[in-house]
């Protein structure tokens, strides 16, 4: 696979697996920990990062979690220092840090700015306290609004807001209200996720015990259609299944994932994809810290997909993008045409009106978008 080898990874992901409290729907790799554990973790992370120095030229950096903003100011500075030492600041075009309302302070915001962070992803989820409570978030709608304004005042010109829809007793009106508030704040980027019930979460437990029941799928679909319509009309480009951006403000870092290109991950549970090999660090924080301390292998998972599977995965990931996948790019990368591997499926799906060709790009139709998973199984 020439293409992959020609392009070494240029995206760096750094994971901070700590939160102020665990949200009811969350199955991410994050825990509530004391300062001591966080300090130990940051030291370990620092040494993992320092080993990366000079190996890659990163164009995008993304510090995610968890909640990076839950770190104390001292800890945050330590983290930002560690990151800046293994990147070449002038090469980095996009540097994102995730933050949650209720954990940001003016000082933390200043630190972020000082260390070259140029994009903030704010986990708002909703501006309505009822929804926030249901989700188990630590902040109010007002906190979110205030934090956003603070960020703007500090000079952040590229801010994403995460929103969530599909809570059991959320109405279409509630959702429209959230969207209106978000648009009034005028962020450059909005991610709108449908609530999902993941195994092991409190919400799923409640669902199974009959304490709550899922929102009707048709209403959820209406909400999804609403967000697409509303944001598109307000100048946002619907560029990925759940992501919207002002022109030119698409998240370059995440585009790396959706195009199935290489990236390097650091921190507990972080995944790297280098030269077609995907590896994952140890999820468990203590094991990660000890592993690094003892200089042991901290990878807990690795796979190297055969070319055809890697190609299939690339098609699946790229179909998440509204512009789909370019036949020419695919050819350059894999040395054959998409049809050579998926001719039958493509004909069938085009016949069903679920995918189409648009300017040499294969993409989901609107009908296909709503049932994207069903469509994607055809490319496995």
């Amino acid at each position, binding site marked *: 696979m020439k293409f992959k080898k020609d392009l070494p990874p240029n995206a760096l992901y750094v994971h901070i697996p700590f939160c102020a409290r665990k949200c009811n729907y969350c199955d991410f790799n994050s825990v509530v920990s004391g300062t001591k554990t966080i300090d130990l973790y940051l030291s370990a992370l620092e040494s993992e990062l320092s080993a990366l120095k000079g190996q890659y030229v990163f164009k995008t950096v993304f510090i995610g979690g968890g909640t990076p903003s839950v770190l104390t100011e001292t800890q945050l500075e330590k983290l930002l220092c560690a990151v800046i030492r293994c990147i070449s600041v002038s090469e980095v075009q996009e540097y994102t840090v995730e933050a949650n309302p209720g954990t940001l302070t003016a000082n933390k915001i200043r630190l972020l700015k000082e260390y070259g962070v140029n994009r903030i992803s704010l986990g708002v989820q909703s501006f309505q306290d009822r929804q926030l409570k249901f989700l188990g978030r630590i902040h109010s709608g007002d906190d979110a609004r205030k934090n956003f304004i603070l960020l703007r005042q500090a000079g952040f010109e590229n801010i994403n807001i995460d929103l969530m829809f599909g809570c059991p007793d959320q109405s279409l009106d509630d959702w429209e209200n959230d969207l209106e508030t978000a648009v009034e704040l005028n962020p450059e980027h909005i991610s709108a996720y*449908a609530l999902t019930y993941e195994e092991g979460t409190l919400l799923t437990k409640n669902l199974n015990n009959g304490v709550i029941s899922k929102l009707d799928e048709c209403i*959820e679909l209406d909400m999804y259609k609403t967000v697409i319509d509303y944001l598109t009309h307000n100048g946002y480009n619907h560029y990925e299944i759940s992501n919207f951006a002002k022109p030119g403000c698409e998240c370059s870092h995440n585009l*790396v994932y959706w195009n199935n290109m290489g990236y390097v991950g650091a921190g507990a549970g972080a995944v790297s994809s280098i030269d077609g090999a*995907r590896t994952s660090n140890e999820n468990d924080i203590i094991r990660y810290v000890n592993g690094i301390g003892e200089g042991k292998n901290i990878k807990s998972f690795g796979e190297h997909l055969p070319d055809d599977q890697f190609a299939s995965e690339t098609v699946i*990931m790229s179909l998440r993008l509204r512009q789909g996948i370019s036949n020419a790019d695919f050819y350059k990368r894999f040395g054959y045409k998409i049809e050579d591997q998926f001719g039958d499926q493509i004909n069938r799906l085009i016949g069903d009106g679920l995918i189409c060709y648009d300017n040499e790009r294969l993409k989901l139709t609107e009908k296909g978008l709503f049932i994207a998973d069903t469509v994607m199984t055809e490319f496995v």
Partner: protein
Amino acid sequence: MSTERIRNFCIIAHIDHGKSTLADRLLEKTNTITSREFRNQMLDDMDLERERGITIKASAVALKLVCDGKEYNLNLIDTPGHVDFSYEVSRSLGACEGVLLLVDASQGVEAQTVANAYLAMEHNLAVIPVISKIDLPQSRPYEVLAEMEKTLGIDTEDALMVSSKTGKGIDEIFDAVIKRIPPPKGNPNAPLKSLIFDSVYDEYRGVIVYLRIFDGTVKVGDEIYMMKTNRSFKVEEVGIFKPKMVAKDYLSAGEVGYCIANIKSIRDVKVGDTVTHYKERTAEPLPGYRPPMPMVYCGIYPTNNTDFHPLREALERLSLNDSSFTFEPETSQALGFGFRCGFLGLLHMEIVQERLERESNINIVQTAPNVTYEILKINKEVIKVDNPEKVPPVNEIEEFREPMVRASFILPAEYVGVIMQLAEARRGKYKSTEYLSEKRAILIYELPLAEIIFDFFDKMKSATRGYGTLDYDFIGYEAADLVKLDILVSGKQVDALSTIAHRQDADIKGRKLVKKLKNEISRHLFEVVLQAAIGSRIIARETIRPIAKNVTAKCYGGDITRKRKLLEKQKEGKKRMKSIGNVEIPQKAFLSVLSTDE
């Protein structure tokens, strides 16, 4: 070699009474296998047997034993205990002169103890009663002996007591086998007369036949002749089971072994056939085996229509090794070309289906199982119906008849009441009760086969906390008020989902069935309507709502692998589905009729 030093015997018992474990001890004591090779239930060498912990195929093994300074050749056949594999037992009995009849010291006499003991007596074999698992604290060997005398009328004075766990009593088994089981009769110098009691297909060597030699001798280079199929072959190898195949120069009267003769066509071999020499033939063939009557039928179809011929080959190959299932080509509007297959019971059906898939790599779907019905038509013609689709229009039927069985339950006396209730609810006719002892009873009912073959067994087991056992024999057909219950998927009748039901249960059954189907069939991009109908009367209806939204909201770097695996799993599930019209029906849906529970 003279037959004086040969003993051929089977181990028979109810399921789980310890046959294969006893065989392990006999293998060890005779040093037939090294301790390095040994593993528990050594003779259960099929993956399916090991996974399920039960014996499915009878296996033969040759043991060498020195007793009173003389060397003996013993041929042991370990048999399965489950009722569905009783044909394995009866075939094995045909190759033996005696049996070890095992009874678990704490379970006591159970239904297949009686059934298998009677089989052995019908074959006029020497029966050695053996009480097994005497190490268990709840064992009650003397009561069990009394039960044996009462049910089987056999003398238990010389019964043996063993524990395959502690090894107690194992040596006495050898002694009894040699002293109490007669050596085989037969003349090694007479023309060859041997019985094919089993066979297996080997990709490289063709059909391997398992033989019991009654007269004569067979050796490499001999021209042999199969009397029923009229075919002759040149012997390439003969040998015995240790338990792996070990070549020998010859097999002669009284011995049990295998024979390889470059037999490439499966159809040239019939289990039960007599093998003799081509030139010097035996006068009379052996009586062979009476093929067992299938109790339950179902359709087996390849999920992929192009797999019809490979499926036929796979069925033929499998039938070599399991001659107790039958198959006939049939077509279904819904499923295309496939086979109607007959089995001895549901476990048998399940095993055949699993073996087919494992041994041939073909994905199959299997339709709802049913029993065979008899229909007297207005024109006085009597037809047999092994597929609900073959039921003629109502106005041509004078009498609808169903198969009846005589069922005997052997169970602890305290459960007699619950089993009676269960049997009455299944349209059973009470016949008699007999007490084996204060604690154990035999209950006899006449029941429609269709009522006991599906979910009855599990119900009985749970009602008796696992202690109830059941054996049944077909007794004939009896008129009953039966109707054909059809299922329509999006308005189209799906023949493969039709069943036959008693009129009084049909409405409830129809309603339950569409409910279950609703859960089994996943949502489509369009609405799917499910209906149950008797003739043109719709008795139940359910709809499956279309998928409105099915899209993973979040997918970033760390999620890619997980997402791909999820999609792979969904795709794997689709393999076992059959599209009917444009509705994908999973294998499990076809088996919905099996259980009448919600």
